[in-house]
């Protein structure tokens, strides 16, 4: 199964009369996009703003981040289950704009957001402080509840993604990457390299805290085998609207999944990238043990893996899922390496960075102490609302906030350079 990804690097975004890309500059017809998105009755209005790296702007109530992408062959479209005809994705050609992000913001009871500072002290933590950002600021209609609003906001961002992605059609890309993926279950056909897989835990507990796979909430799923190709075509999308900004993976990081990309890059050279197991994190212990068994059974008896990378999504209780899979894999002869966040206090003190620890977990990469405080500067402008309950007071003020509040600073699937170190 082959997918050709074509990347288009944007150097600037401006509002213009036509939505078009010219010499690396993306022009956006605000009124056209606005009326397209206002077709959804969940919104009584929507503001669309643009902000650039270096501006003293704080985006608040950040709920998700998406990049513009579009399939350019046949009838298939990215984000199956949301856009285009419902079909399997992951083959053909997909165009992606880089250096530009679409930021979903929203403020309603029952939603929990983060911040992105484009300038000042706080700009160093998030990759989204370094991209040109199109900020969607919808106003919920009177009758709409948080669940409906969140679903509509997700749809709006994905629509905006494809709408902007369309500007790349027939233009030459800066870079092309080919993802050629074939699951090799048959051990006889292996490449003679270590067989490596990835157990990707996603959190789908209840509405507003869920992951979508082909547009369906993955809460009741059993562990699934999926391909890298589908991920890059938007088969997995975040529905986390009431979840700590540091404990969820933004759609942007999923679409550019760094671990999957890394394994694809090394495939055929130092490892045989065999497969990805997409697994839910059940809310009860029995379910967690059951899922772990399923994951390991697939890894061992179906994929015949030598080694596996394991990540989690969420807070303390998901350490159980992470550690249970690690322990069972190691005991069955599969070597493991994990990424985990550290949950200490703001001074970095505490005996237990993780809630559950198994002695088999001897290879853990740190995604940082989520509680460490960072200073953010006084801003000139705010986008995404007038107030944010997580920071209180004037949202433009300077502040000292936990790093988990900065959208994108902490990322459990490896898209960050922030790590904890012993001092």
């Amino acid at each position, binding site marked *: 199964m082959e997918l050709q990804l074509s990347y288009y690097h944007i150097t600037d975004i401006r509002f213009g009369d036509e939505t078009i890309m010219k010499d690396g500059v993306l022009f956006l017809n605000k009124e056209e996009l606005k009326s397209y998105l206002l077709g959804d009755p969940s919104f009584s209005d929507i503001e669309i703003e643009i902000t650039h790296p270096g501006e003293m702007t704080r985006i608040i109530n950040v709920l998700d981040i998406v990049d513009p992408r579009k399939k350019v062959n046949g009838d298939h479209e990215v984000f199956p289950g949301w856009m285009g005809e419902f079909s399997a994705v992951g083959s053909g050609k997909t165009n992606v704009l880089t250096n530009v992000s679409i930021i979903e913001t929203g403020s309603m009871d029952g939603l929990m957001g983060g911040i992105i500072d484009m300038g000042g002290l706080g700009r160093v933590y998030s990759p989204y402080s370094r991209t040109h950002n199109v900020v969607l600021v919808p106003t919920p209609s009177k009758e709409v509840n948080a669940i409906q609003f969140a679903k509509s906001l997700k749809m709006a961002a994905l629509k905006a993604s494809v709408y902007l992605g369309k500007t790349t059609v027939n233009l030459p890309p800066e870079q092309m990457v080919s993802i050629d993926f074939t699951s090799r279950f048959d051990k006889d056909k292996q490449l003679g390299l270590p067989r490596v897989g990835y157990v990707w835990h996603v959190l789908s507990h209840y509405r507003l805290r869920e992951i979508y796979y082909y547009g369906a909430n993955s809460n009741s799923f059993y562990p699934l085998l999926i391909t890298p190709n589908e991920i890059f075509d938007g088969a997995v999308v975040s529905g986390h609207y009431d979840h700590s900004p540091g404990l969820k993976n933004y759609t942007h990081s999923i679409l550019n999944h760094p671990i999957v990309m890394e394994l694809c890059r090394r495939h055929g050279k130092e490892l045989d990238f065999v497969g990805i197991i997409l697994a839910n994190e059940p809310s009860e212990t029995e379910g967690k043990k059951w899922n772990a068994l399923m994951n390991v059974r697939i890894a061992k008896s179906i994929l015949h893996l030598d080694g596996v*990378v394991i990540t989690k999504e969420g807070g303390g209780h998901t350490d159980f899922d992470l550690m249970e899979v690690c322990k069972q894999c190691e005991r069955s002869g599969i070597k493991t390496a994990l990424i985990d966040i550290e949950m200490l206090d703001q001074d970095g*003190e505490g005996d*237990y960075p993780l809630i559950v620890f198994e002695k088999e977990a*001897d290879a*853990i990469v740190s995604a940082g102490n989520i509680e460490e405080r960072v200073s953010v500067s006084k801003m000139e402008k705010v986008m995404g609302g007038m107030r944010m309950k997580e920071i209180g007071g004037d949202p433009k003020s300077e502040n000292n906030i936990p790093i988990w509040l900065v959208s994108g600073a902490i*990322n459990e699937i*490896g*898209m960050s350079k922030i790590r904890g170190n012993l*001092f």
Partner: protein
Amino acid sequence: MVHYINQFFGQIGGEEKADTSPFIKKGPIGPGVILQEKLRDRGEVVATVICGDDYFSNYSGEAIEELLHLIKSENPEILISGPAFNAGRYGIACGEVCRRTSKELGIPCVTGMCGENPGVEMYRKSVYIIETPGSAIGMKNSLSRMIEFAINLFERKPIGPPEEGGYFPRGIRKNIFSEKLASERVVDMLMAKLSGSPFVTEVFNPIGTEIEPASPLEEILNAKIALVTEGGLVPKGNPDRIEGARCTRFGRYPIWAKGNLPAEEFECIHRGFDSSSINEDPNRLLPIDVLTDMEEKTQIGKLFSFFYSTCGCGMYIGEARRIGREIAESLKRDGVQGVILVAT
């Protein structure tokens, strides 16, 4: 700068003079001379404070007060102690002098010793201890590294991780920017593991404190049993403002009578899970209905008329310990003998 040393390095004598009581001399003495050389024109060792290792060990309360008094009299901006290398009593004295001076004068204090010195385990958390070899052969190099570190502290330069600064890890975690994304590092780590190459984990298995459980109840039919939970069940409106995450408080609330509808009076504020089933019927979190039955059937002595509630979502361990202690003390005052701890 003031330099603290023991009777041996202070050129008073060896073990026979280890009971020397604290005194002060102007200028550098013994290794202090090397200290002054390394310091160059950036500062001056104005005085040396000396104390016998035995005196410090036997009269540590008085000794430290006397030493602080002497140190304060010179009004230093930096204090250097030792280095103590592998001398245990000396290392402990150096650690305590640094700790107290830093606390009371607010000045940078640095000492040095080797890994086996008991002073390391006792003081690494509160004092910067530069790692030295086991003997005084390392004197020049150790003093040089100690003075440079102290000057960086004095100039408020950011202190790098232990492997760069040459000090014993203090046991705290701080975030840094790595050169590579975590995704690259995790695949690197897996490949090293698969090929049998060395690798270093970034998060360590913690050495937990063992908690000894209380002995089982001898006679449950006479026992007063209480319910304690971290499930965040509070009276509607949350009058004590118990936080739904990173909680620092607990509440003590009356249990409900059988037949009452607790859903009308209580709510669950825990941010870690979907609490709607608890909100529908709080008996699902605190099985007061079942326990009231058991009390009537004399299967337990008595169900205590209050329950304790806090919220465990993302609770700092330090806070958990404190809250646990406070709840335990309160339970003892209430005459409770056994507790059912409901976790979520």
